[in-house]
């Protein structure tokens, strides 16, 4: 068996004010998996992702990565408004001191992967929200990572754009052979994208279910309305339901 891309052992996060953001969790991500962390606000899914990225230090426990280099895609596109698309995508290479000519070739390739080859000279504000997100993904791919961490990257987009980006992301993942950890609070997005969904509950943050989605590939729009898809959506809904306290359902709400 190959070395896992991410090995998380009994990692927990307690904020300095004593709030426990995440109970100790353990999780192993295999090479090439597309894992989604699914849960309501406050379940610690973003916290867990930030700890994997090294943006946040765990209070206890260990995280071992073998999926270097990794890239992180934020909820916002976080582009430099003063720089054109080309310069934005080249940023991680510039920071790492990659020679300009070599960097440029990688930038062109990354822009091609996200379908933005014709927009290299545009400024971010000339692009739609969906296109800005594509630039952000291109910036994530340009370093040719083995591991891609994504924190609700399409959360601010309309559903039509989101569905299209989901499909494109899936194609990229299959093509590039990456491992992906993707945070979302959309059940359908999780079912559409993932090979495996980690369902998390809130207060305190914890893992409540680990669901494998073994579906036929490739996945297309027809998959979104298939019985298998709906069965998984229901399964995840039930898991989320069980995770939330029964007291939060008012009596009689089901009628």
């Amino acid at each position, binding site marked *: 068996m190959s070395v896992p891309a991410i090995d998380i052992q009994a990692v927990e996060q307690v904020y300095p004010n004593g709030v426990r953001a995440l109970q100790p969790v353990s999780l192993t991500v295999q090479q090439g998996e597309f894992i989604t962390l699914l849960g309501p606000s406050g379940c610690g899914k973003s916290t867990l992702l930030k700890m994997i*990225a090294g943006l946040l230090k765990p209070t206890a426990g260990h995280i071992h990565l073998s999926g270097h280099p990794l890239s992180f895609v934020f909820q*916002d596109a976080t582009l430099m408004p*003063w720089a054109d698309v080309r310069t934005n995508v080249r940023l991680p290479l*510039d920071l790492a001191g990659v020679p300009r000519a070599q960097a440029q070739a990688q930038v062109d390739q990354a822009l091609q992967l996200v379908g933005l080859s014709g927009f290299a000279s545009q*400024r971010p504000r000339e692009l739609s929200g969906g296109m800005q997100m594509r630039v952000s993904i291109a910036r994530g791919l340009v370093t040719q990572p083995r591991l891609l961490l994504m924190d609700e990257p399409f959360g601010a987009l309309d559903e039509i754009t989101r569905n299209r980006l989901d499909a494109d992301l899936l194609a990229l993942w299959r093509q590039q052979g990456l491992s992906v950890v993707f945070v979302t609070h959309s059940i359908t997005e999780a079912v559409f994208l993932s090979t495996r969904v980690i369902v998390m509950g809130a207060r305190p943050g914890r893992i409540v279910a680990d669901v494998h989605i073994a579906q036929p590939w490739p996945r297309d729009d027809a998959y979104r309305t298939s019985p298998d898809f709906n069965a998984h959506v229901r399964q995840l809904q039930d898991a989320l339901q069980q995770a939330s306290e029964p007291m939060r359902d008012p009596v009689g709400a089901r009628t």
Partner: protein
Amino acid sequence: MKALMLRTIWPSLVALVLLGLWQAWAVMAEVPSYLVPSPWLIAQTLVKDWALLSGALLVTIKITVLAFGCAVLLGTLMAFAFVQSRWIEAAFFPYAVLLQVTPIVAIAPLIIIWVKDPTASLVVCATLVALFPIISNTTIGLRSVNPGLAAYFQLQGATRWQTLLRLRIPSALPYFFAGLRIAGGLALIGAVVAEFVAGTGGTGTGLAYQILQSGYQLDIPRLFAALVLISLTGVAVFAALAALSRWVLGGWHESEMSPP
């Protein structure tokens, strides 16, 4: 094009109407020119005394430009020092404020006594007046970094120097240019005020000195002519800085984007 019309035609029209009314009033009410000269007389004086006034204008412009340059240089350096650590800012920012709230007329005589060279003393005074907006705006600008981008730089292991060059300085530019526009006007005001103070000591030959002299000699048309030159200089400084700001920020920052 329409925006340009709006910005130039209408103000010019207002100016013409006001000048016409003033001229008509001065002629018809036979206002003595030692009280309020007519615009036409001011224009004539401007031409007649041009040799004298243009020399004074050059002196004032020189002091303004030098002071502005010093203020930009010093103010930017101080802002960079302030953002290096909260300690430095906490220790020195109150003195920057002190500088700002102390009226320049009150300390100008001291500076003129201490600094022997007349031009240098005037530049010091004007610099003190123009300095604060540069410090304050640039400091705020260097701190106003998009938190998401800052996290991204941190994640990519960017050095302090890379973060400064590629993130902090570009983020600060809109604030810096807003500070420049204020400081440009203040440098001129500082130069004129300092000339006034120095002028009575007989050292200055700038526009403010001409205003003082004209006042003593009751040559009110020349006083007005000098005043007009000061105002036009101020407008020119502002326009130049606004154009610079538009040129640098026009491609990306909201403040300089033309409305759709």
